């Protein structure tokens, strides 16, 4: 039921926040589509294998968000993924609570995936070394989004995630991170970020 992040998903999220440190950023988390849920899989974590960085700056406008959601949904179907969550880093460093945009997008995702989660990046703790996880995870319970305690269990392999994220931040890999906004500016920019994915794999 609770989501878990791979190194690739976590690190691309943090790189996105680092690239646009003066703006709000958001994106989607994707998980592998599993077959029919077994009765006893209740409690098994859902592994978010990747994330797609969406926008930076003004997040509260609908049209491009709709385009992105539809396009990424189609891409997910081709790759046997499902959109499983939403991440956001707010503009102000002291503000890491989910706002109306986060709740609306997450609600939309929940229509297709009942255990969708919101991951908020805590800007105030974003450092090069990232010794501790800097995310807050929110699950939907009884019509409200409730924060969950973030432990190392929320990651597939925290020490790997920490190592890779720190290495890519120091190497300024975020300069090459492509989000959906960059894609709309120039269609040749690939929002699946194959280059960064390769860097992550090389460091694993």
């Amino acid at each position, binding site marked *: 039921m609770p989501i878990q992040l791979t190194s690739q998903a976590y690190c691309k999220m943090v790189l996105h926040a680092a690239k646009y440190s003066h703006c709000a950023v958001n994106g989607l988390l994707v998980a592998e589509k599993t077959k029919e849920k077994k009765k006893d899989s209740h409690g098994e974590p859902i592994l978010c294998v990747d994330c797609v960085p969406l926008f930076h700056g003004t997040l509260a406008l609908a*049209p*491009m968000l709709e385009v992105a959601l539809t396009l990424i949904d189609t891409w997910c179907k081709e790759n046997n993924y499902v959109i499983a969550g939403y991440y956001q880093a707010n503009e102000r460093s*002291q503000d890491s609570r989910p706002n109306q945009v986060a709740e609306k997008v997450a609600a939309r995702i929940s229509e297709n995936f009942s255990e969708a989660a919101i991951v908020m990046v805590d800007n105030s703790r974003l450092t090069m070394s990232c010794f501790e996880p800097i995310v807050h995870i929110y699950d939907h319970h009884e019509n409200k989004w409730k924060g969950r305690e973030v432990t190392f269990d929320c990651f597939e392999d925290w020490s790997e995630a920490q190592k890779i994220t720190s290495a890519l931040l120091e190497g300024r890999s975020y300069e090459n991170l492509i989000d959906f906004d960059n894609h709309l500016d120039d269609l040749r920019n690939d929002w699946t970020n194959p280059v960064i994915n390769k860097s992550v794999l090389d460091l694993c």
Partner: protein
Amino acid sequence: MASISEMYDVGWEEMRDKLRKWREDNCRNSEQIVDVGEELISEHSSKLGDDVWIIYEQVMIAALDCSRDDLALTCLQELRKQFPDSHRVKRLSGMRLEALERYDEANKHYDSILQDDPTNTSARKRKISILKAQGKTAEAIRELNEYLEQFVGDQEAWHELSELYINEHDYGKAAFCLEELMMSNPHNHLYCEQYAEVKYTQGGLENLELSRKYFAQALRLNNRNMRALFGLYMSASHIAASPKVSAKVKKDNMKYAGWAATQINRAYKLAGRGTKESKCSMKAVEEMLESMQITMS
């Protein structure tokens, strides 16, 4: 670590020209400005002539963005020495205090500038930025409105206000700000396109039709604006799918959406030429457009 000039094989003139380009385009690539600017001023400041002062200012602001208070202070001190009574330099001092989150002191700086010169727009705008940084959005909006009553032609301020309204989900007022910007910049495709996005977000049939018109206008002004193209497709599709429209309106909008879909496919084909990876997103676009056609009819 190798210097910029070694890594990119550039001379000081090219570095200076790059800084000028970034200044003119108002880019916020602060890390690059710090890298290039720091080297330029530490090794070539004597060659820069009078340009050196504006470069100090540019590098100082970029340094604040990158938490390089050491570099910011160096630049500030040079500027203070050269222009001891300048309000422009005092504003930079205030910005440094803002970066250090010493907002009360920064406000005092700006207030003293305004006492000397009540028409100083930069100081007023910095005070509004402080309100924004502190999360006091309602106050920031109020102050910015008052500012704009006096300085009606300040485009940067109108745009900032539109963004503040969008973040507060007050789309009607955001639209009003963008209307002001469109009136004074009728050829700017970006304002048109943003206005269309706001109208779309507001929702309702009338706003959707307006949004479609403004997406089309943005395309007329710049036929490579992908957001406008996608926006035209989405708004026309939604209008065609609405149960409240007449058969003629439905038919017309399906035509517009069909045209937009063709253009989108063409744009992706052009972009995808030669790269295997983007074939996947091209396929995704084709499928998305097809699936929306189904829901429309």
